[in-house]
């Protein structure tokens, strides 16, 4: 291989993987979450005792388990994209299914977490901390659901050999959105469950 071709091979790609439109959506979503995180952090500053006391009532193990599930889901999606680049269609579909199941696991944990709070009489109006906790985590969970729906469509197409090593932009689009959902939780977890 000539030096110029080698250079070409290492040239940075002009655009991120997947459809350009998904990256516009990702940037909008990240901007919204930035505002929500900043609002939580500075509201906490004005109600330190309340936030520190209420945070201890959260199920930190549920937060940990959900973080592990989302990271694993992201890994599965990355493996699915790596597999389709080698034209391993069926293997790619299996990784996508595993990612969707990690999303299901996340929602099951959230269901029990919310269930425990609601049965203890806690709701959005209990106090400012729980207004933020329920709003932030529910808003994020909606993104998990949307990510799972997108991955389900990608999985269906992958099952019918709809992607190949040269044509898998749709899968990369879904993957990028799912990684964004994971990235947001990476900050949400320490912010809401860990740091006091």
């Amino acid at each position: 291989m000539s030096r110029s071709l080698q250079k070409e091979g290492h040239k940075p790609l002009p655009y991120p993987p997947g459809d350009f439109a998904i990256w516009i959506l990702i940037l909008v979503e990240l901007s919204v979450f930035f505002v929500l995180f900043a609002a939580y952090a500075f509201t906490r500053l004005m109600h330190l005792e309340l936030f520190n006391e209420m945070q201890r009532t959260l199920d930190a193990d549920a937060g940990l388990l959900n973080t592990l599930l989302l990271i694993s889901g992201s890994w599965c999606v990355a493996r699915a994209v790596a597999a389709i680049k080698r034209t391993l269609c069926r293997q790619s579909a299996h990784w996508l299914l595993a990612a969707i199941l990690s999303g299901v696991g996340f929602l099951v944990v959230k269901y029990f977490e919310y269930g425990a709070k609601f049965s203890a009489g806690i709701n959005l109006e209990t106090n400012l901390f729980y207004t933020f906790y329920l709003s932030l985590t529910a808003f994020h969970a909606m993104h998990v659901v949307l990510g799972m729906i997108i991955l389900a469509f990608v999985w269906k197409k992958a099952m019918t050999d709809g992607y190949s090593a040269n044509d898998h932009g749709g899968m990369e689009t879904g993957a990028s959105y799912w990684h964004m959902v994971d990235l947001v939780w990476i900050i949400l977890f320490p912010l809401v469950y860990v740091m006091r």
Partner: protein
Amino acid sequence: MSTHFLNVIWIALMVATVLTSFIGKNTAMGAGMVVIVLLISAIKGWLIIEDFMALRRVKFLWRGIMLGWLLLTLSVILLAYWLGIK
């Protein structure tokens, strides 16, 4: 990207998550621990952006926007917590 490398990133992210949880449960959350927890989050976010999102080989503009969002978000959180501890 090799699947082996993706596996290594996954394990690193899992270990970092368990470490974050351990710090939250077993230490008094002073300023130092807040910085460590946010630093771990920064490393995790960086790995997700560069390796899972596959932006490592994309023009810096896109990586810069994503990494900039990560740093800005964590910096604002750090500022709010620092003011609270102060």
